[in-house]
């Protein structure tokens, strides 16, 4: 009985109909949280003693970076579930997660560069964290390119899932190796602000933004997955019914 929900989740139709009810709530939550977090963070949080106002970009930068990493694991885990239990739905989630994760990785790199200019005086440093984020972006792009290149949908699903899993094994190794590479050869001149050492007056708006980003991620991922499912299942009865009902 306990596994019933799991098997039901494998059915695209059940998922599609169930998530229709969730979407408005997720949308509402993410819009409210992001609006509150943005106004609070940009307008009311105190100015940083050293960085002035430029630090405020963390309210975008940190949540985006969080989700860029978490998104890779979501992609890889749903790919693994698809490979193991042969679940159509989880492959759709995996395919949907790749472009979203790539965009979030790009946003975190871009905001990091914008933040780096006033803070460190340069847009780009070969810092361990930045470099491993860049490699993460390449891993995402690799998965996307492979999914474009393989013409048969089911083969592309499995191939991407395998590549995502190989990447998962490699992410910790890549991160550690880049970290050591940096510490071995360059003095540690740059420290990225850690959220643990942050003042509560800055931390709470940041937390709001992080939760808001999570909600937004879930919202976009669900919407994207639903679109993919409709496209893949276009020949089935339930999609025809959904499309007819929507008109």
């Amino acid at each position, binding site marked *: 009985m306990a596994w019933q929900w799991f098997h039901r989740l494998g059915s695209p139709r059940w998922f599609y109909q169930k998530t229709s009810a969730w979407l408005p709530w997720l949308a509402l939550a993410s819009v409210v949280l992001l609006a509150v977090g943005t106004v609070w963070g940009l307008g009311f949080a105190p100015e940083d003693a050293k960085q002035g106002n430029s630090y405020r970009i963390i309210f975008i930068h940190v949540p985006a970076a969080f989700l860029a990493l978490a998104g890779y694991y979501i992609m890889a885990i749903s790919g693994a579930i698809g490979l193991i239990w042969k679940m159509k739905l989880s492959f759709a989630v995996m395919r949907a997660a790749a472009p979203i994760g790539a965009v979030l990785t790009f946003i975190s790199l871009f905001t990091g560069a914008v933040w780096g200019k006033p803070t460190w005086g340069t847009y780009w440093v070969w810092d361990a964290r930045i470099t491993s984020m860049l*490699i993460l972006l*390449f*891993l995402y*792009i*690799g998965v996307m*390119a*492979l999914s474009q*290149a*393989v*013409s*048969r949908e*089911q*083969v592309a699903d*499995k*191939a991407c899932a*395998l*590549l995502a*899993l*190989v*990447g998962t*094994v*490699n992410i910790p*190794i*890549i991160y*550690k*190796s*880049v970290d*050591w*590479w940096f510490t*071995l*050869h360059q003095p540690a001149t740059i420290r990225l602000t850690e959220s643990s050492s942050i003042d509560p007056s800055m931390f709470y708006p940041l937390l709001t933004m992080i939760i808001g980003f999570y909600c937004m991620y879930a919202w976009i991922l669900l919407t994207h997955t639903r679109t993919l499912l409709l496209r893949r299942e276009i020949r089935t009865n339930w999609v025809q019914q959904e499309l007819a009902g929507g008109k």
Partner: protein
Amino acid sequence: MSSTDVQSPVSGARISPGFIALFRIEMLLALRKRADIANPLLFFVTVLALLPLGVGPEPELLAKMAPGMIWVMALLATMLSQESLFRGDFEDGTLEQLTLLPQPLYFAVLAKSLAHWIATGLPLALLSPLLALMLNLPAEGYFCLFISLFLGTASLSLIGAIGAALTVALRRPGLLLALIVMPLYVPVLIFGTGAVQAAIDGYAYSAQLAILAALLAAAAALAPLAAAGAIRISLDN
């Protein structure tokens, strides 16, 4: 069709369900097509010869760039030669037959990766001191460069096999293979160049070499598994 029908492209030879037999055939094929061995080496040497033309012939500058450039070129040479790792076998159906063998596909991939390494990585490592000399690398780095390439190119062959297996059914996999495989090469590159740099600077470099060996051990255990899975997926196409 029974699995005893498996014929290798070499006339008369029979692929027995054994690692050694497959390895022997791969080596024989490599020896018959010597150009496949020579091309990566020539690529390696040619591109490195372009380097001084590009950045200027100052010995200090070249010495500074030598470890990184030699490593990056070794990486590219390995990757470019990897595209054809499973291609021939895929096109004539041998790959499909290999999946039918009573032994795990793991050993077939391992045998092919090992043969690929002996045909490309090992000659690159053997040739590297000569290029190091031409690029004015300090003499302290020679031995370390050789050992690091010896260990590192083997890891590259194994990791690249995953990409080759994923893209074997595609018509033009070249750039896609690079896109998939390059990020996975990063740790090997970092520790390889790190070891050589440490050797040149007069520090102990056994730690980096140990990590390279550990990466190789992990790659030998895991990469053929992933590549075997990828071959089965590609054969569905």
